[in-house]
């Protein structure tokens, strides 16, 4: 799987309409040589998982600022498992309180990046975990 280019799906689950962070990250990842599929605002967990499967991505990056992560992320992880796509690395960013992070990591979210994290940190993390 590491033979080709790293493919990342950047998705915005839920109802908030702020995608500045998602776009900044998408751009930084493009400049790092990744192929970034951006799916736009207000995606349902079903849409995100189907898109990730069709695009054969190595990574899903979830950007969320609405506070609904405890509700949406479990559903996404469950759908990934049902689709046989649990090999996809899931990372998250946005406004997520520290105290929620352990539970999300237990669900299988590999890493949660809180506001202020340099984009290079997320990129480094992906390179380390996915290779290529």
């Amino acid at each position, binding site marked *: 799987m590491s*033979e080709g280019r790293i493919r990342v799906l950047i998705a915005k689950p839920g109802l908030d309409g702020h995608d500045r962070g998602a776009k900044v990250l998408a751009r930084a990842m493009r400049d790092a040589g990744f*192929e970034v599929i*951006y799916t736009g605002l207000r995606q349902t967990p079903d849409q995100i998982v189907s898109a990730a499967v069709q*695009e054969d991505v190595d990574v899903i990056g979830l950007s969320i600022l609405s506070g609904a992560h405890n509700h949406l992320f479990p559903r996404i992880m469950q759908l990934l498992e049902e689709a046989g796509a649990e090999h996809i690395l899931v990372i998250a960013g946005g406004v997520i309180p520290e105290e929620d992070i352990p539970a999300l990591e237990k669900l299988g979210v590999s890493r949660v990046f809180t506001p202020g994290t340099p984009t290079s940190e997320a990129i480094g993390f992906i390179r380390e975990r996915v290779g290529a």
Partner: protein
Amino acid sequence: MERCEIDAMISGIRDNRPGTLARAISMIEDEEPDSAHLLEGLHPFTGGSHVVGITGPPGSGKSTLTDRITKHLRKRSKSVGVVAVDPTSPFSGGALLGDRTRMGDLATDPEVFIRSMGTRGSLGGLSRAVYGAIKVLEAAAKDVILVETVGVGQSEVDIARVADTVVVVFVPGLGDDVQAIKAGITEIGDLLVVNKADLPGASRVESVLESTLNLAPPREEPAPKIASASAERDEGVEELLDLIEEHRNLARESGLLELRRRMRARAEITAILARRVSRHTEGYLSDGDNGWYRRLTRGEVSPGELAEELWSKLLGQESEG
């Protein structure tokens, strides 16, 4: 990969399993050694889909139009494959593939499969892997395959070598009559669509296209048809789809389809060969130790003679191997 794994993959593709389709397209994109065997195995199951190309300048609404056409096709109970190409950065090798932002709610329809691709160095408006991706989708028995090119300028005409029907999207405000007479993308369309027909200047674009067609010398293929649409408002799309289907039927009856398919096969074979030759020769020419450059600068050989030498070497290798 074992022979049986490739066979399993082929049957997964024919069963329309999204994960298998996706993996197969990645193998082709990454030019994994097994992809050649995969494509060989898929070949007998190809040729049944209507391949429609959608091309036009950046921002002309290709993705939105693709989304709307797909929805109307679904109303007609057709299954759809979409290949959407966006440019790869020549500097980083990365790409931002954003066509899905216009197609969000198609993602969960099991009869629709969408794949985004970077051009990965190809300059003709498509990616080299498009041929292969079409084969995968054909083998999955998609009724219609929509291929959306990158935003094109004037000379990215590869789509004409790939599609059965080519739709060129125009919008108001891009230039005067001369733009429409210039050679290139305006010549490859079977259907010319003026999108954003609700904007001022749209009817003017239509009449310019019409007069351009009237000036065109007679050709063997039927003259392109002109349509107008507002993809955003979902107006004119149903009619456009009628024209797309009509084109396919006429092309089939007149033998044009056969001709296009022949051209496509020719382009594909040529591309495979060209790739192979360039891999061999690049290997030789990037090797600093064999002295080819020294011989060239001393005037012992010309570039033409060196090419001839490499060619013989290549033929020798091929017959041995």
